[in-house]
């Protein structure tokens, strides 16, 4: 048995840190786990994605189209871009945030309207404003860990040693706020 998780967003949103923390926690909890991400050009404000697969005897590190049990989109348009990765009955978690692409910002084309309404039509879809929630904690950047909390609750894996992984992987001055962000995320799902 195994589960497939995919995290998508825009370069700079912290998808990679969330992925690292989750991967470390899964390892410490005794799962076989593989993770894959694409570095390089896409870091510069482009679309980014990372894959986590866990369970027993995982071979491929890649989540392919139609196979994600959980898809977490840190930005709304990215949710649609990667929608074909989530299983038909898989859980989709979306951060209700618009980030312009250079094409929409330069006025070459419009940022699409009604994405949230479109996504809401799908069952098993959960939409949150993690950016606003992060601001209430005093740092917009922790939206990535809030979304990680939502995901962990959705996976029913609240006992994963995420807090320990945060302590291992986050810079000391940001550990406390990230712990708070994770707990806030846990309380949000449902």
């Amino acid at each position, binding site marked *: 048995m195994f589960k497939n998780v995919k995290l998508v967003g*825009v*370069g*700079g949103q912290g998808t990679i840190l969330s992925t690292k923390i989750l*991967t*470390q926690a899964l*390892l410490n909890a005794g799962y*076989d*786990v*593989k*993770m*894959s*991400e*694409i*570095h*390089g*050009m*896409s*870091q*510069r*404000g*482009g*679309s980014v994605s990372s894959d986590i697969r866990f369970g027993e005897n*995982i*071979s*491929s*590190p*890649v989540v*392919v*189209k*139609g*196979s994600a049990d959980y898809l977490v989109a840190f930005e709304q*348009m*990215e949710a*649609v*871009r990667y*929608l*074909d990765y*989530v299983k*038909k009955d898989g859980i989709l978690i979306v951060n209700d945030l618009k980030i*312009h*692409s*250079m*094409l*929409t*910002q*330069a*006025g*070459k*084309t419009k*940022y*699409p309207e*009604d*994405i949230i309404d*479109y996504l809401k039509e799908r069952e098993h879809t959960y939409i949150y404003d993690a950016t606003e929630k992060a601001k209430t904690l005093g740092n*917009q*950047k922790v939206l990535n860990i809030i979304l990680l909390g939502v995901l962990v609750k959705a996976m029913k894996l609240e006992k994963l040693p995420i807090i320990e992984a945060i302590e291992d992987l986050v810079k000391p001055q940001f550990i406390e706020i990230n712990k708070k962000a994770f707990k806030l995320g846990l309380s949000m799902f449902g």
Partner: protein
Amino acid sequence: MKKILTGNEAVARGAYEAGVVFASAYPGTPSTEILENIGLYKEIIAEWAPNEKVALESVIGASIAGGRSLASMKHVGVNVAADPLFTFAYTGVTAGSVLISADEPGMHSSQNEQDNRNYAKFAKIAMMEPSNSQEAKDMIIDAYDISEKYDTPLLYRMTTRVCHSKSIVELGEREEKELIPYEKNFSKYVAVPAIGRQLRHKVEKRLIALAEYSEQTKWNKIINNKSNIGIISSGIAFEYSKEAFGKEADYLKLGFTNPLPKNLISKFCDDHEKVYIIEENDPYIEEFVKNMGKKCFGKDIFPYTGEMTPDVIKRAVLHENMDILQPNMDLVVNRPPTFCSGCPHRGFFYELGKKRKKIIVAGDIGCYSLAVGEPYNLMDWLICMGAAFSSGHGAQSVIDRNPNDDRRLVSIMGDSTFFHTGINSLINTVYNNGKTINVILDNRITGMTGQQDNPGSGYKLQGEENTPLDIEAIVKAIGIKHVRKINPNDLKIVKETINWALELNEASVIITDWPCVLKKKYKNEDIEQYTNAWKTKDKVLEDKCVGCKACLRSGCPSLVFNPETKKMSIDETTCVGCDVCLQICPYDAIVKDEKYV
């Protein structure tokens, strides 16, 4: 101890455990983190080289002198290093030596999809291909023993998904190797023709011995599930195959792939009704199998390009399509990568864009290749590292033959690319009386691959400080008479300088001097030079903003247009106060945010 490591971290650990003492590389996705991680081990001398050829040559010297050595590079880097590689293949090693090639099936961050397994066959050297992080660590330890036993450099072929995926690794301990004392041996190491002719025979005998090793090594193994379907595979494609077929097939898993094990493959083919060769990029194994007269399925059913992920395999073999949601793609707009907020390339490209009709732009490899996209659309071609100056020179020579064409060539590369091979290209332009405008965008770091230090950054890989290379002095020493060094965030000066260069009828060099916004380490003198870099922020005065969007031509991602109020605003969290938009605004509606002054 168990750790979860990327393939790059794991192979670095393996090199450490194998007793490597010297490693060199030039950064390139997906190979960069190999040397970065090797650099963390104090027992190993780890150096960034200005290019891959230099890296491999340093490594060859280290091997000749008796220390285990390692070079790592991306696939196209091996093209640069191919010259020394092919002679190293003849001389062989004193202490073991491994060249890691990180290939890119799917071209996530590269200009081509070349399959560097062909280099091992071409150079007639040993090759290994790990499939996951544990193998990446374990196999390289054996690679050094093979290199020494068979007197061969070894090509260690990884791919993006092996390099950048994480899996669990059981760590071992470092085995310190005594240096092999260097003794002069000109009949082995001086590759003049007379000796080359002798070594040529050694290379052929070595291949025969390596072929025997290939038959019996544990890295080439059969996994028997009592199936009549047989799959031959290597690298990450083996993991994908296992995912796709599970226990429904038998596998011949090849980890040692040059020379390939003829008898093992032959018997495996004979023992199975249907044989599939599952490999990424070229039909490297497939051609070998077919040359033996064996029947198999390969690129006739699998795609010739891209990653051979489980879904691709299932589609090709089982004609099985997954039930996939079809998203409404009308709701999706492309999101190409962009210059960061505060990127010092922005001001230069903004001003250069105004001359669009008068110029042809020869581009190069680095962050500035992003100027190909919106809103700049400023790049006519991009070939390879260092090619901007030389290809620009060739183009200008031909353009100038047409009396009705007065366009000027602007050739653009970064500091690291200039050190890589741009210097040679600039020498060529000067010596041959070229007339191009040559721009060095000096951001004091190797940016695109993730802020690696280089000879101009002031730091070495393992942290020691050094004197930064003086680009202006080098350019003048080469013989360029017209050189200007400017702050690219000062648009007035950028504009003046571009006009100055366009008026000249001789080759010129413009050096833009401002650090990458992501550069982490500064010396005291740098901090003085780049006063207040990234410490301020800009803001929009709403009452003055008329919503003309002129500032958006800067291409800065911190600028946001509100369609309801028809006003611009600046994202406070990402703006670093470079002032480029402030200078563009025709209504003085952008000012320094006093909160941050």
